[in-house]
């Protein structure tokens, strides 16, 4: 079978050209006066109540974006675009799922603290996003409370929140400065509403993010067949148009502003009218999004783990694994979804630990294996054949065991036969994951923020 993973150069070029036509001929909905003035000053025009963006302006703005983006943490940083795959968790889940009682409860900010501390200890979660939308903090400051509680519990690099108002963006910049100092390098997400809608808060928030110099992650979430065309190619074109229009406005306001090219394409269940995340098209569209973003030399963040299942069962397992692997193989810089359940509406610690293992396998596949004189092992085969006729005692075997040639997950297979498994109470992957997460939470602690930082943050959080 031929390699099916990659979009050919001519298909990428066709998607790019179709996108330029959408921007130049159809245009975007935008009502913010300041944004419109900037766009008109740079050659945009208006017909049919929409603002058209000429192709050369799009191409010029794309050239201004850096090809790497730094994400800051308290003790480390990630460089998106350095060729490695970084993984982050779901953001903003509403509820916490209990795998033992099979029930949901509303999330609190303590759940953000606990989940951040758990992920801080898990090797394959590289960057962290506030996982839950808590119900026990004032609604007006919810984004700030989520972020602060998360950063208190991890030293890993962070993804900033999605922002919905100028005040949100402004306050977020202030609190990030308290934590990271004056030169903050952290992403904030901003969602134009598909199709091609930059009305209301959308355009002013893009300008404010640009003014503040924060890294911008345009985050349109088109839904195939509902808010974008039913053909996958058409949806990829429209999403691309929405991202590129955001980039044009941001780069005109702040040339050189760092951008992460985000893709969040999902499908609609045409029988019920609800979005579906577990279908294979999600992984396919994510992979295509990676290739489009790389065509523009931008780091790309797309859905990874994505499933429709309502519990951490086999359906959720196969859906999320396929949807994470496909964009990873396409070269994604950052993949999301750790802890995602039921389309991102809830999460639980066991799912987080399971996802850490799925990404362990994905990383292993992406790493491949070396083919050189040492690994081709002709001498080792010769040696074994003339001695014990097995390889367990070879130094070569020992060396490769320690270098990770064969992957070993956190959950693994602890029982080595039916009898041992059965007498251990027939534990499922979820049972094991519960055990691992409880063990981590008993033993893993994160150094607190300084007293000075806490005082400043308290001031900001209590300020009305």
């Amino acid at each position, binding site marked *: 079978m031929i390699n099916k993973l990659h979009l050919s150069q001519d298909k990428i070029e066709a998607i790019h050209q179709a996108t330029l036509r959408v921007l130049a001929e159809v245009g975007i909905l935008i009502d913010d006066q300041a944004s419109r003035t900037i766009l008109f000053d740079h050659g945009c025009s208006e017909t049919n109540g929409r603002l058209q963006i000429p192709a050369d302006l799009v191409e010029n703005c794309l050239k201004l974006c850096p090809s790497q983006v730094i994400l800051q943490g308290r003790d480390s940083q990630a460089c998106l675009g350095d060729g490695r795959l970084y993984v982050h968790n779901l953001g*903003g*889940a*509403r*509820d916490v799922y209990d795998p033992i009682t099979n029930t*949901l409860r*509303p999330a609190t900010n303590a759940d953000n603290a606990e989940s951040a501390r758990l992920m801080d200890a898990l090797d394959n979660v590289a960057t962290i996003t506030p996982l839950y*939308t808590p119900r026990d903090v004032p*609604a007006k400051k*919810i*984004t700030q409370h989520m972020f602060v509680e998360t950063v208190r519990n991890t030293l890993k690099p962070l993804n900033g929140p999605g922002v*919905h108002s100028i005040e949100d963006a402004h306050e977020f910049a202030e609190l990030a400065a308290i934590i990271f100092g004056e030169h903050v390098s952290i992403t904030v997400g901003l969602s134009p*509403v598909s199709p091609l*809608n930059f*009305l*209301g*808060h*959308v355009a002013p928030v893009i300008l404010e993010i640009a003014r503040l110099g924060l890294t911008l992650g345009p985050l349109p979430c088109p*839904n195939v*067949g*509902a*808010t974008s065309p*039913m053909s996958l190619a058409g949806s990829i074109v429209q999403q691309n148009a929405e991202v590129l229009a955001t980039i044009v406005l941001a780069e005109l306001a702040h040339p050189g502003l760092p951008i992460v090219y985000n893709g969040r394409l999902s499908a*609609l269940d*045409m*029988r*019920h*009218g*609800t*979005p579906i995340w577990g279908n294979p098209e999600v992984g396919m569209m994510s992979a295509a999004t990676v290739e489009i973003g790389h065509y523009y030399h931008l780091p790309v963040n797309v859905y990874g783990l994505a499933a429709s299942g309502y519990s951490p069962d086999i359906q959720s397992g196969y859906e999320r694994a396929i949807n994470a692997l496909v964009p990873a193989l396409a070269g994604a810089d950052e993949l999301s979804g750790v802890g995602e359940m039921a*389309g991102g*509406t809830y999460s639980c610690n066991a799912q987080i630990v399971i996802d850490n293992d799925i990404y362990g396998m994905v990383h292993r596949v992406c790493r491949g294996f070396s083919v050189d004189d040492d690994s081709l092992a002709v001498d080792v085969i010769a040696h074994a054949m003339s001695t014990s006729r097995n390889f367990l005692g070879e130094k070569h075997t020992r060396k490769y065991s320690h270098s990770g040639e064969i992957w070993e997950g956190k959950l693994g297979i602890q029982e080595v036969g039916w009898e041992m498994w059965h007498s251990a109470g027939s534990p499922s992957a979820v049972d094991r994951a519960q055990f691992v997460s409880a063990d981590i939470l008993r033993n893993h602690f994160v150094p607190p923020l300084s007293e000075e930082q806490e005082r400043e943050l308290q001031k900001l959080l209590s300020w009305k």
Partner: protein
Amino acid sequence: MSEEIFTQLTESLVVGEPEETEALTKEALASGIEPLTIIREGLMPGMNTVGDKFSCGEYFLPDLIIAAEGMKKAMEVLEPELRLRNQTVDSMGTVLLGTVKGDIHEIGKSLVGTMLSANGFKVHDLGVNVSTDNFIQKVKEINPDILGLSALLTTTMTVQHEIIQELVKAGMRNNVKVMVGGAPVTRSWSDEIGADGYAEDALGAVQLARKLVGK
């Protein structure tokens, strides 16, 4: 002649050609057929067939929505004629719909609106980012049977609660049934904020609306 045009009208809804439904409706009127007869003999059989095909899994949502568009176009032609004759089509009830303040997501709410219209409800859609005041004002003005509040974000669903509290303050809570919807909305949220119900998809919303108006 009339038998043939009824068949054509029905067929235009079933295959999803709204412009044809509109043209055939005009043609039927021009040939002297009564509006209520056009509805009963031509349009309703079409909508019922589409509904049946959807129920048995042969049709998808776009089939329903395109058929509803045809029905809407036909009704726009027929309504002035019905008024002239002082006739009305039985309505299931009036629904006021909108997405709450701070939220500009449209599709879910619009889909619910379309499905309610297709099932005989009269729908007033206030659009997106609707202020709480505007909701309260409109409830006073049109006195709907049902108020539908949509919110897609975990950060905006709290506004649904705010609106219900305002209805209580204005002494209007008992005049209208409130249904809430949107991706983050659950039954427990609906119960907690004192709404009259929620549904997980647009078809569920139709069933709920029927239940709320007692039909």
